[in-house]
């Protein structure tokens, strides 16, 4: 094994480690080993590449490494856990723009032809559109731009038309004979399409979209592998593409929607008709004191967290409440809907951050049969995922979506700021149920009050 061919062996080792890293991620027990495997794999890939004889100057590369690490490390350590969806979107943007820029650089370096050019065009298209789409998703998640869907008449036609033109320019570039402006125009359209893709998508659909962008970033990397004839890139990119794809399918199923519906459906339009239907139906409310005494005397409590818990940063207070109840001998469990929050698994991360043991966190299918024997279902900042209309009201926009059957519990408590309908703007009949108690207030504030009242409860 000579130094000259070291990179080939390094790439093989890297590929194996990257595959193992995803394999080990399947359980919390081995997951951290998975991250280590991924890191070492990446190190092999980078060192192997640096030692290739094609790489002649190191100056710029090293400077770039330093800048990248100086930005990346604080980003990972300083971001609060509630900002993980934004951070992930931002990370996708960086990865995607890297792929796109390499594609562009390769294009101007030696104007490849045939299959390589086709791969390069796909790499560039996916890279640029994922870049701007991820930036737009970041802006929505960070609430720099309105999170509700922005729609206008003929939007889908404009978007698809624009995409078609971009693809045509791409094909022209591959076939050959395209003028000099074709490639830059193709780049601009790809960038523009990314933004237009995200504008009509509402915050509630973000889990699917983030998963989809994750998949695109992987596909861009794999396309780069084809363009550069580099199989390590193909393997890593394909793994990532497959992972993002599965997650977005899981998210779509959890909302009973199709890909096309998420991307072109513009959820916002449906809601205008249904939002105003229920105005003055009576609801039962309760104080923190009532809530504390009911919780203290129950045997089994299931907590249903949603995005509202994340926004209010209430997870630590929820942990305190859990500890108190457990000490009193109450069985406390958590029910996690797949699309609760703004990205797949969002709630699990927040509850883990608050130090809640992960064996208390249950998936929808596992916990649903248990609601009939649950004394209190405590809904904190979740809305559509507990709306019984999804089961029976064929006119409801969320009809058919699998939900958490909290209405089957003896008592349902819902912590909510006000009666304003949730993100999708759909009224929730759960709130008017006889067995439902509405606890109006900020999630964090109200849970703290319950915690305060708890010692006084009999």
């Amino acid at each position: 094994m000579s130094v000259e061919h070291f990179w080939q062996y390094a790439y093989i080792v890297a590929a194996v480690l990257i595959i193992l890293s995803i394999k080990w991620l399947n359980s919390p027990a081995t997951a951290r080993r998975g991250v280590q495997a991924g890191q070492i794999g990446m190190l092999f890939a980078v060192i192997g590449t640096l030692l290739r004889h094609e790489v002649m100057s190191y100056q710029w590369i090293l400077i770039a490494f330093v800048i990248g690490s100086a930005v990346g490390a604080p980003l990972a350590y300083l971001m609060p856990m509630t900002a993980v969806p934004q951070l992930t979107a931002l990370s996708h943007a960086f990865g995607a723009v890297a792929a796109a820029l390499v594609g562009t650089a390769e294009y101007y370096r030696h104007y490849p032809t045939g299959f390589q050019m086709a791969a390069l065009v796909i790499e560039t298209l996916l890279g640029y559109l994922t870049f701007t789409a991820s930036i737009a998703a970041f802006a929505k998640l960070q609430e720099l731009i309105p999170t509700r869907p922005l729609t206008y008449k003929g939007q889908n036609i404009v978007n698809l038309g624009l995409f078609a033109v971009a693809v045509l320019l791409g094909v022209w570039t591959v076939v050959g004979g395209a003028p000099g402006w074709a490639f830059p125009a193709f780049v601009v359209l790809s960038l523009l399409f990314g933004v237009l893709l995200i504008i009509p998508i509402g915050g509630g659909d973000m889990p699917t979209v983030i998963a989809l962008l994750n998949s695109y970033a992987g596909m861009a990397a794999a396309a780069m592998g084809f363009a550069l004839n580099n199989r390590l890139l193909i393997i890593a990119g394909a793994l990532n593409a497959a992972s993002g794809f599965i997650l977005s399918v899981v998210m779509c199923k959890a909302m009973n929607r199709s890909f096309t519906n998420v991307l072109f459906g513009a959820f916002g339009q449906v809601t205008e008709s249904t939002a105003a239907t229920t105005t003055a139906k009576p609801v039962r409310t309760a104080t923190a004191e009532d809530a504390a005494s009911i919780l203290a005397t129950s045997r089994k409590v299931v907590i249903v967290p949603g995005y509202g818990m994340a926004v209010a940063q209430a997870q630590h207070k929820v942990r305190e409440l859990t500890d108190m109840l457990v000490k009193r001998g109450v069985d406390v469990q958590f029910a996690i809907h797949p699309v609760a929050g703004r990205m797949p698994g969002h709630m699990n991360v927040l509850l883990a951050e608050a130090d809640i043991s992960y064996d208390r966190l249950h998936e929808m299918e596992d916990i649903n049969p248990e609601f009939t024997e649950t004394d209190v279902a405590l809904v904190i900042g979740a809305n559509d995922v507990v709306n019984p209309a999804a089961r029976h009201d064929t006119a409801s926009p969320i009809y058919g979506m699998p939900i958490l059957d909290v209405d089957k519990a003896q008592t349902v408590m819902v912590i909510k700021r006000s009666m304003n309908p949730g993100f999708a703007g759909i009224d929730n009949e759960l709130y008017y149920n006889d067995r439902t108690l509405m606890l109006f207030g900020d999630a964090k504030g109200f849970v703290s009050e319950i915690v305060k009242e708890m010692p006084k409860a009999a």
Partner: protein
Amino acid sequence: MSTEIELSIYVFLLAAFLGLELVHKVSPLLHTPLMSLTNAISAISVVGAILVTGAGESPQFSKILGAIAVVASTINIVSGFLITDRMLKMFRKKEPK
């Protein structure tokens, strides 16, 4: 179609199916860390970025784009792996004190 391309397509297909199999086994509990880990892995495009930036015969324009790509993918790698580990450290099985 050259054998090289044919081989690459086989590699892609096998890796994609392997990915589908592996990811299916990941518990929904860990979907967020999964996403940030695969995100860090997709920054493997750093390989392409290094090759473009370091190549002797690259025009200046390509080198500049390449260097920016190295910066972007390094940010992606570093933040992706670190945040994944930070998240996973929090997943513990324990009883309240």
